[in-house]
């Protein structure tokens, strides 16, 4: 409960740091810094999380792991809905995303919401990268505190 508050606050400070930080940087640059921090965190985190778990059968199995175990660890709930086109695109719906849940219910602050999703996009990309899946992760929000993350797997 309380350790969760620390995580929320540190994330909040990270966001406000990149957007109000000393040197003037563009929105894109700031978003990419957050994404990068998320990536570094996710890459290391999954290493520790998967210590005891067995091998994953396939890509879908990995996605299910992200939606359940990883999400519960980081965001205290499971992803509410996972969809895929079976061609490497996965869409994860979270109806009550942790970083948005203290913020608003509806359209208030909608324009700034993407700033609070960038870290998570990176976190997911980092986890997947360490599990051997190269991908691009984007996020979308139309109504807080719900949002969706789209994972596009890059086949090499």
């Amino acid at each position, binding site marked *: 409960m309380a350790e969760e508050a620390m995580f929320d606050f540190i994330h909040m400070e990270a966001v406000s740091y990149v957007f109000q930080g000393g040197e003037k940087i563009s929105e894109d640059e700031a978003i990419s810094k957050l994404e990068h921090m998320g990536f570094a965190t996710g890459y290391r985190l999954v290493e*520790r999380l998967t210590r*005891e778990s067995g091998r994953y059968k396939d890509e879908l199995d990995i996605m299910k792991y992200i939606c359940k175990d990883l999400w519960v660890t980081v965001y205290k709930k499971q992803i509410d809905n996972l969809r895929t086109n079976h061609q490497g695109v996965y869409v994860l719906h979270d109806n009550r995303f942790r970083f948005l849940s203290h913020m608003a219910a509806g359209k208030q602050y909608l324009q700034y919401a993407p700033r609070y999703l960038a870290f998570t996009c990176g976190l997911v990309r980092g986890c997947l990268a360490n599990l051997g899946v190269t991908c691009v992760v984007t996020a979308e929000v139309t109504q807080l505190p719900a949002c969706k993350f789209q994972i596009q797997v890059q086949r090499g």
Partner: protein
Amino acid sequence: MSRQSMRANDPKKVSGELFTLTYGSLVAQLLKDYENVDDVNRQLERMGYNIGMRLIEDFLARANPAFKLYLGVSPSIGSWSPGGDEFSVVLETNPMAEFVELPDHCLGLRYSNIMAGVIRGACEMVQLEVMAWFIADQLKGDNVTEIRVKFVKRLEDAIPAGED
């Protein structure tokens, strides 16, 4: 989606690690952004200060022992100065720095400096101006992590009536 049981992992431990790793990524980003390690130390302290000012209300609204609650470890308090205006917060283990090893080029980095900021911010909200700084750090080979807290003054103007 079916609600199956989680894989065996101590969720409490892992969520502590999550915080530790996130903090690590933040410090790494700061090191990249600033050339000077002192600037990083300052920035970390400032972030802690911002957190402390908000965290104190969370703590008071629920009334629980703070360090234990927010970091998962209980520090000991000691080494009071003769004047009684200075003391140390000693952590046997520092969960924030659990996976950290300082590289040679940033030995001047006070890695957990955010903690000093949190203490300063939280005290200021209860009308105490304090200074808080690290005097021992396990990352630098010390046996314990020790933060020294010095009372500067009561913020008289800010004291709410009836709270002397």
